[in-house]
């Protein structure tokens, strides 16, 4: 069976492995090498460490608070929206997901509008001169944004739980509270810890929120951003990056090690609808009340973004205005086009590579698959901004970075400073999403299918295209939608690598916000969210067109059968 096809798979495996090492492992290692080796060892202990220690404390403080709050709200909302029956539940299930389609710091726009120095509530209504900037602001904003992430994971767990253990517990006489604490909750621990870990990582990696509303209170990630953009001190940034990397890496692998379960994008939802029949009214109202509060916060964010987008000058002149819209259509349209181009390309390529890689790792007996899996997953544990620094220090030199050693006399900028680099970093950063989706799907695929096709005479190429490719399509679709939205809203990884000619919308919003043009920022955030929404809807139609056509056909048959 040493055929040409198996040669192609081998070649693909070798090439993808090499490029993954090159575009994932090398940049991360580079940060360490650059931060630790490029001189000034004595400065480290005297000046740099106390400074980093302060930011580290801030980062951890924020991240721990946010992790507890966001995960609790995520859990609370999951239970309420999927286990308690009340009016308006369906609507809330949709509304709660809204933050997923917008950049993570969009909420801060609304926050500043309401509680800022010239905020509607603090300034105009209460006439206060207080500043909301600092620790509380960061924790509030991150908690609201990340509770959605936690909710997404935990609710998927609660929806696919097996009912029978709960029924057994009830049958053995356990009261509802006991059932929840001893059965339901322990069964969801893997998803809860995954959610907590992701919230922790995202909070650690978020530099935009502290920059916008942190005031004097800055974190490791935001300091890193300032080091590069303000001072262009790459070495200092690299050292900061190392200290940012350590807790993130630790959190990721501790979670992975202890719960032993990776992020699973399960499509399986338990067919049996479970609802708590006898909940004490007090508990029920508390659950609904807290979840409503959370949903109201989310809805308010968007409501005020819409209002702010059409207001002449927030805080001073509240007249209706199309000024911001006109401005953006005239000046910033290109950045939206770039965002969509980037997101579609990255979504397509990285999902395809990821699913292919999952297929190869699971079915072919190639060497070093475990190690490759680890390297591919590394970006999940790495803050985007750190990977960005890695690209910055690695690819400053000609010939994709190799030139530093081979051709020291060459022009210093080659890959860095081209449009391709932001595509590369996003593609390689998200390959693991497609890979995990592929793994999850392949667990449900009967391993004998391939053998059956081979047995009927199919070649390795035909086995792949006739059998595995169609079966893996759902994994590709899921990864594509996720990678598309992630890329649309990502900032950290690409913020240092963008050029004026390929600026993207998220970066524009961020820049406008740091210069306090609230109305323009609100309008851009609104447009970006709408754009994501429109594209997501279009892709849903495109990816599921067969199913939709089938439904339409069935519907028509049904109608014509009614006529008869």
């Amino acid at each position, binding site marked *: 069976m040493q055929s040409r096809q198996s040669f192609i798979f081998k070649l693909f495996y070798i090439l993808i492995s090499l490029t993954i090492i090159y575009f994932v492992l090398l940049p991360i290692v580079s940060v360490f090498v650059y931060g630790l080796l490029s001189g000034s060892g004595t400065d480290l202990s005297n000046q740099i460490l106390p400074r980093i220690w302060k930011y580290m404390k801030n980062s951890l403080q924020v991240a721990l608070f946010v992790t507890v709050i966001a995960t609790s709200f995520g859990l609370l909302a999951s239970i309420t929206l999927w286990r308690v029956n009340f009016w308006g539940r369906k609507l809330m299930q949709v509304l709660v997901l809204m933050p997923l389609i917008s950049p993570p710091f969009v909420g801060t726009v609304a926050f500043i509008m309401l509680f800022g120095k010239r905020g509607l509530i603090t300034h105009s209504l209460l006439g206060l001169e207080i500043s909301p900037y600092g620790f509380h602001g960061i924790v509030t904003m991150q908690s609201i944004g990340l509770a959605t992430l936690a909710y997404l994971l935990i609710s998927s767990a609660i929806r696919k739980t097996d009912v029978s253990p709960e029924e057994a517990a009830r049958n053995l006489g356990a009261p509802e509270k006991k059932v929840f604490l001893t059965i339901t909750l322990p069964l969801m621990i893997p998803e809860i810890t995954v959610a907590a870990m992701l919230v922790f990582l995202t909070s650690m990696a978020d530099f935009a929120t502290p920059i916008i509303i942190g005031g004097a209170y800055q974190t490791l990630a935001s300091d890193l951003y300032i080091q590069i953009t303000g001072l262009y001190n790459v070495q200092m940034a690299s050292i900061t990056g190392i200290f940012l990397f350590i807790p993130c890496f630790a959190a990721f692998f501790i979670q992975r090690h202890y719960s032993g379960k990776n992020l699973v994008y399960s499509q399986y939802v338990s067919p049996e609808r479970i609802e708590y029949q006898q909940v004490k009214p007090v508990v029920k109202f508390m659950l609904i009340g807290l979840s409503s509060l959370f949903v109201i916060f989310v809805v308010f964010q968007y409501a005020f973004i819409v209002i702010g987008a059409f207001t002449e000058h927030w805080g001073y002149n509240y007249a209706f205005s199309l000024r911001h819209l006109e401005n953006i259509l005239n000046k910033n349209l290109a950045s939206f086009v770039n965002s969509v181009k980037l997101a579609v390309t990255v979504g397509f390529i990285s999902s395809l590579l990821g699913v292919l890689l999952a297929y190869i790792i699971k079915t072919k007996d190639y060497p070093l698959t475990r190690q490759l899996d680890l390297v591919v997953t590394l970006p999940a544990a790495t803050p985007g901004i750190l990977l960005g620094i890695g690209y910055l220090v690695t690819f400053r030199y000609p010939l994709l970075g190799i030139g530093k050693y081979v051709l020291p006399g060459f022009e210093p900028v080659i890959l860095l400073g081209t449009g391709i680099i932001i595509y590369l970093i996003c593609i390689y950063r998200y390959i693991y999403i497609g890979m995990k989706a592929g793994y999850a799907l392949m667990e449900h695929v*009967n391993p004998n*299918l391939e*053998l*059956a*096709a081979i*047995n*009927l*005479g199919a*070649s390795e190429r035909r086995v792949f295209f*006739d059998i595995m490719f169609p079966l893996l399509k759902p994994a590709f679709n899921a990864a594509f939608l996720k990678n598309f939205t992630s890329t649309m809203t990502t900032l950290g990884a690409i913020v240092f690598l963008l050029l004026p000619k390929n600026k993207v919308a998220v970066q524009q919003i961020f820049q406008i916000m740091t210069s306090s043009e609230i109305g323009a920022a609100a309008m851009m955030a609104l447009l970006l969210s709408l754009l994501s929404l429109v594209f997501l809807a279009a892709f849903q139609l495109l990816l599921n067109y067969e199913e939709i056509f089938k439904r339409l056909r069935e519907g028509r048959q049904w109608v014509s059968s009614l006529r008869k």
Partner: protein
Amino acid sequence: MGIELKEITQKYGDLIAVNNANLFIEDGEMIALLGPSGCGKTTLLKTIAGLLPLHQGSILSNEKDISNLPPQARNAAMVFQNYALFPHMTVAENIAYGLKINKCAPSLIKKKVEEILDIVELPGLNQRKISELSGGQQQRVALARALVIEPAMLLFDEPLSNLDQNLRVSMRRMIRKIQQEYRITSIYVTHDQEEAMSISDRIVVMKDGVIQQIGLPGEVYLNPRNRFVAEFMGTANLLELNEDDEIIQLLECGRWASSRDNCPGGESNNRQKRYLLFRPEDVEVGAEGNFEGTVIWHETIGSVTRVSIDFAGNEIIAEIRNYYKSGINCTIGEKIRFNIDLAGDGHIVPD
């Protein structure tokens, strides 16, 4: 097409899955590979199909060595345990898959699919999705998909183990009927003794990768070569014999005492444990029986009642036909009388 397996050994790492297997399968014959899970029967089957690389030995088809042929070229269609139907294709597409691979003309494919669906008694289901079929229907589509490419041999990997009892019986009759009609050389892997006996021309019993016995179904049942085969082929009463053959004297069947050499393998190693074998149907319960024991338990499954009898410290299982009308009374702890019919050969088996 006759198939010969010569000295086949297969390993998974250090684990020997199949150990020096030799077997000749006649043209048009149906062989059952019978054994408990992990005995190497499926490994052997997949080796024949070429789905596992051959570690050692050779496979001959009509005296031609096919050991190194790729699975695609072996023309050995397989019916898988979980059917392995392609879930994203319709029934017709599943069945047509092998024909398309072999570049059959579309009109011919259509005709062949229709024909084969008639044969497996699923006419008109061409456009159904696999998920819309019952287990029995899926099983028949899997059979059709294998049959339609007109294979030189058919390989079955426990094809009926996911079906309920009644369906299993009717499906195994259908498989046997089609196999005999088209005279396709077939190998049928199963762990079910009843299925193996009813479907095959000959049975190969395997344990721990080693072929224990090859023979006609009746041969293997009546003259098992060792204790394992005896116990695997239905219920067996095995009474351990000591040096003095105490049990034989007790059962007053003295003629067996001299026939120690009847025991296959027994002559080579006298220290090996030996057992007197008889089946429950050899035990005749009745008031006129020569022996007496105590009832330990009994169960009636309809046509037959099984009684476990304590006889001088040995447990003997007896079968009573038509218990309710027999007038026999089984009460746990009560005495019961019985006879043992030890006619025929080979009643002493080694461990």
